[in-house]
């Protein structure tokens, strides 16, 4: 037997939590370096390239922020559902539906002025994404269908729906056969902040994060969500309206991911095309867990994982590592941090030799 003994901590020291995060990141970077080495690439230089790619220039940081926007919104949505212990892993599909909804509005009324069209697109995205969250909620309540399976499968349906539209009805006649819609009219594009490369979606993120924080902290509904998520038995005992809460949460969760789709289509790509799907919805799940569902931490974690994506692109260009390397790193970080959280809840000491 190991001469180590573990025991459950009564409370976690703040410095332990502070240490876990950097240690876990460091450990996962070390494993990545090892993986690079195994492929015969320069390990230390590779990690350097990763950082340089993500933080090396003011363009790089701007790129990180831009990618953090959809991750943040999807992750907020996912976290809302997770709070109620509803495992919505369908942010990817809800994101796709949001993009589809916004595009429908943009293509339908291209001539409307921006102050009318953009809210219309946002509302359409919210509704479409919300619908994609509503379906698994109803199936769960009516037929006891497991939401993990349903949300996951709806992702594929959403992506196929998106493909169907851009290959068929919505295909731009001038696209030389490429699957994409026509470029949006200027009124349908979310504007830039001053002369930076950032768009006003960033402000939407800040506002949404703030509103959700207020919601959970100061409203009765927020309290009911928190209590139900803590203990379903107690929720039933206290007469909390679990069914209504579940529907609300999934609508909200889907709607937020839908907004991410709207911003991507409108501000980043300016049209709808299959390449809009790059897995933000899955990254969002990692982010929500890393941030322990706290809106503020979700902001930080979104930025870090966005930086990872940007950094890995650099690594791909310079060292010709496969694209999957980014996914591997994402997984490594999640696993090391989850493993590290063991040390937040448990302490250990050397077992004294007993006679």
């Amino acid at each position: 037997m190991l001469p180590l003994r573990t025991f459950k901590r009564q409370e976690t020291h703040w410095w332990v939590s502070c240490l876990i995060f950097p240690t876990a990141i460091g450990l996962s970077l070390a494993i990545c370096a090892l993986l690079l080495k195994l492929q015969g690439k320069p390990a230390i230089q590779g990690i350097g390239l990763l950082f340089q790619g993500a933080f090396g220039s003011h363009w790089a940081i701007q790129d990180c922020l831009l990618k953090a926007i959809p991750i943040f919104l999807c992750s907020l949505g996912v976290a809302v559902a997770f709070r109620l212990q509803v495992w919505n892993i369908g942010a990817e599909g809800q994101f796709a539906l949001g993009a589809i909804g916004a595009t429908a509005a943009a293509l339908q009324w291209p001539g409307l002025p921006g102050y009318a069209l953009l809210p219309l697109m946002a509302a359409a995205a919210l509704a479409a994404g919300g619908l994609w969250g509503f379906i698994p909620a109803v199936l769960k309540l009516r037929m006891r269908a497991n939401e993990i399976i349903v949300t996951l499968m709806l992702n594929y349906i959403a992506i196929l729906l998106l493909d169907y539209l851009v290959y068929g009805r919505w295909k731009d006649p001038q696209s030389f056969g490429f699957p994409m819609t026509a470029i949006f009219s200027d009124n349908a594009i979310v504007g830039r902040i001053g002369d930076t490369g950032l768009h006003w979606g960033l402000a939407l993120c800040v506002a949404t994060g703030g509103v959700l924080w207020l919601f959970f902290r100061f409203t009765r509904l927020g309290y009911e969500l928190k209590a139900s998520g803590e203990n379903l038995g107690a929720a039933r005992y206290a007469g909390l309206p679990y069914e209504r809460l579940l529907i609300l949460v999934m609508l909200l969760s889907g709607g937020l991911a839908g907004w991410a789709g709207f911003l991507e289509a409108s501000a980043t790509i300016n049209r709808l095309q299959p390449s809009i799907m790059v897995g933000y919805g899955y990254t969002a799940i990692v982010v929500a867990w890393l941030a322990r569902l706290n809106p503020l931490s979700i902001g930080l974690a979104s930025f870090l994982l966005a930086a990872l994506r940007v950094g890995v692109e650099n690594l791909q260009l310079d060292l010709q590592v496969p694209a999957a390397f980014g996914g591997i790193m994402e997984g490594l970080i999640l696993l090391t941090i989850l493993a590290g959280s063991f040390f937040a809840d448990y302490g250990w000491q050397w077992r004294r030799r007993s006679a």
Partner: protein
Amino acid sequence: MNGSPPVVRLDGITKRYGAVAANQDIRLDIHSGRIHALLGENGAGKSTLMGILSGMVQPDSGRILIDGQPRAFRSAREAITAGIGMVYQHFMLVKAMTVAENVFLGYPGVLLNRRRMEETVAQLARRFGLDIDPAARIGTLSMGERQRVEILKLLFRDSRVLIFDEPTSVLTPRESEHLFDALRRMAAQGKAIVFITHKLDEVMALSDDITILRRGSVIEGLATTAVTSKHELARRMVGRDVLLQVQREPYEPRQLVLRVDGLSNAGLRDIRLEVRQGEILGVVGVAGNGQKPLVEAICGLTAPAAGVVRILGEDWHRFYTHRRWDGNLAYIPEDRRGLATCRNLDLVDNFLLTTRQGFCRGPWLLRRRATRKALRLIRDFAIQPADTRISARQLSGGNLQKLVLAREFFRRPRLIVAEQPTQGLDIAAIQDVWNLLLNARKAAGILLITGDLTEALMLADRLAVMSAGRIVDTFPVDDADKLDRIGLMMAGSAA
């Protein structure tokens, strides 16, 4: 004490959970052929100590000596091999298998002859006076019979030390007597018996040696013959005089607050009962005879399949479609940790669980006002520690129960359903809870569901005896004739 060396000696056992010492330098001898009672309030460290002895928990320091040899158990299996076995409160049996199969479960060997298995078990049962049919399936057995199977499992493995964790909590008075006979018989044949309890009568009736634990330490080890009365034992256990008496004013029943007529549900047959404001109706019986479904039907967790349930003059469906948060029904569930509170939320959040409607303005929750109110209740009910920021899991059982009572009484209920309100509490907390309930009787009718007859006699104005999903009889608590036959009624015979 006798002169022979102890079969088990605990030498300076210490076990800490964080800052709390669950066991502090415990020294204890267990002798063959004697019945050793381990007595202590809830949270005194009894369960931890027995966990250590049975290999489930590893001590931080100290030694366990078996026949004078130091041994360390790293698992329950090692403890069983060393001859120490435990009968838990919750039985660990395979319901679909027979008695003999359960006894042989885990026994090394590939081919087992069914008849020889049953014979072996029957022989063992006869030897220790444990009456049982080895071919019966566990699912068809009563709690008392299941307990016998657990005991047989240990005897079959030649356990020399048998530990019982509150063995009578699931038994009828009759079954308890039966168990005591078997325990005496086992002791007579050289087994060492340890039993954990906080029922003083049992300690006086059964044990040879008594060890009293308080706050993790052994306060006293003494022979039962040296104890003169139950009262004295209680005083030694708590460290101060507790009067296990409460003042009960004569009641004057007023309006009807609960009427159940012909209620049938899964596990319930034709239930009839009435509760009036100003009285406590005690529902007594052995656990698992329909108390749970009865409470669930009354408290709105399951709809009644047949019959009438009228609460505060309203039909069940009407009552539960729009009920106000106050002046209504309050439910104090048995499972205070799993149902009545959220362990990771702070005390204000837990206070708000059923009172949130009283602290709302539009969509906003008036948390500051709720905090003030909660703090006042915490002081009024003497809940320790008096801090609203700690989470519910940090409260002891007694304090948590007082928090639940404080919250539920704050709603000014007119009907209170209290389910095993003092189970697992220490004597001081029991006293507090009893007084609180008696006090609440002034404004409300109380349905008290309890497995503890003493509690029912102490608190109730009328008793309803439950057995096999039916109410066998309902009578005033001063009906001496019927009280005499209460054990028979619990076992199911008509009044």
